[in-house]
């Protein structure tokens, strides 16, 4: 399934990655080749085969309902570009 340049533009927007228009053609080509490579899997007949979710026979690990973490505001906020009143301060995001 080849990707066109419009699709590349959309994907870039959704991922919030800045892609200059002149880079779209090259990316469309590269991404198309990656997808094409993965699409070879379609050649395998998987009729009646259950999808595999893990290579090891494991089940989802569960934790007990106990408070064991948190209460580390300084660490959590350490990388925040801006902090105010114990909160992350970000450019205004409101409708």
């Amino acid at each position, binding site marked *: 399934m080849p990707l066109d340049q419009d699709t590349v533009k959309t994907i870039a927007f959704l991922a919030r990655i800045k892609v200059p228009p002149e880079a779209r053609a090259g990316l469309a080509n590269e991404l198309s080749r990656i997808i094409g490579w993965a699409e070879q899997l379609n050649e395998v007949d998987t009729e009646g085969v259950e999808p595999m979710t893990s290579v090891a026979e494991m089940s989802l690990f569960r934790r*007990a309902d106990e*408070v064991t973490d*948190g209460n580390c505001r300084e660490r959590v906020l350490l990388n925040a570009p801006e902090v*105010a009143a*114990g909160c*992350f301060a*970000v450019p205004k995001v409101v409708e």
Partner: protein
Amino acid sequence: MAYIIQGETGDWELVCGLEVHGQVVSNAKLFSGSAAAFGAEPNTQVSLIDAAMPGMLPVINEYCIEQAVRTGLGLKAEINLFSVFERKNYFYADLPQGYQISQFKHPVVGEGVVILDMPDGTTRAIGIERLHMEQDAGKSMHDQDPKRSFIDLNRSGVCLMEIVSKPDIRTPEEAGAYLRKLRSIMRYLGTCDGNMEEGSMRCDINVSVRKVGETGLRTRTECKNLNSVRFVMQAMEYEAARQVEAYEAGEEIVQETRLFDSARGETRPMRTKEFAHDYRYFPDPDLLPLKLTQDFVDRIKATLPELPDDKKERFIRELGLTPYDAGALVASRRAAEYFETVAKGRDAKTAANWVISNLFGMLNAKGLDIAACPITAENLGKLIDLITAGTLSGRLAKDVFELMAETGKDPETLVEEKGLKQISDTGAIEAVIDDLIARNMGQVEQFRAGNEKVIGWFVGQVMRATQGKANPGVVNQLLRDKLKG
């Protein structure tokens, strides 16, 4: 009670489905060990997982699974023994991961039903499409600073249940009844506290309209994050009227997310384009599928409390209550338990009357929840006993009830303290009546001439002379005997 919007081209009806987000009652969050409690200092209940630091892995809280399954059972829904967590991708400042872990193709709970008791005594069944578990986002505060929004991640990662109804709702009243019933069921189960003001229960509505008689569905719009039953009903009314107007003006409705402005009572489109809502769901590679055993489900089923519908049914069948009274009593589990304590060994209808008319009335007037009720169920029972025993007349009992609400004391003590005991002693009442007759021969003559109404005046006078404490039955009997002469 059909809800018809009369347009110029004919009658239109409303079609609505609700998505309710209920915060799961648990100690810790869905995938981390941080506390899930409401109201802590900003960012103090945040682990490095909730803040989406690189390399952190989610581990599911088994109690949250149990709570979701319990809710599903309460909604008489099928429980899916196999479900999958997926990533719902979008960017927002209060979503540190850049995605929300949710369930999409394989939710933990499938189809169920909620029965609504409408005020006119009829019932309506609203289908449940699904219930799935997901992470809550953080909280954004926009009003603290002119240029910046403040982000508190305490809520980030708390377990939510999203309960999606089928588009079965036809009137704003049904939407209100649905939300109240859902809240009642979740409170009975102890799975969500249903507190809309604190945001532990929030609602999105999907609204479309169609001509009466049409069977297909037209394009719907969505209004998000309504935080009161009243706003849900208002937004539905506004949105339905707006859509009818648009169709009749020859316009089309576009599928979009709209905001409800509660100050203006209207909806308007969000500026963000629908385009941005391409969530690109895919199974979360950090989490294996959730596999439950039937045994796990059965064990939860065995611990379910009696739910409001069953309780109502029992009150009608065993206690002889009317459907209306039974419905009013079972809406809250605490209220129902209170009533059962009052009714134990007493006349159920009398108990229901006292709880519904007097107790609920008093709680409403004082703005109190039943949990903070100043009168214990035992004491209200004793008050009814005093009426039954003839110690208190109905009127005195109401006075004692008022005093109980103010002081929290038991009725016997209050009757003693205030001397409110009903006078049933015929001697004392006779003396009052003899005195009255002697001083009011005019009225006595009127009675003897056949004017029965005069007796009411005499009863009033006796009550006045005894500060309302005379037993009305005894007064009536004695008066009739004596007036006849």
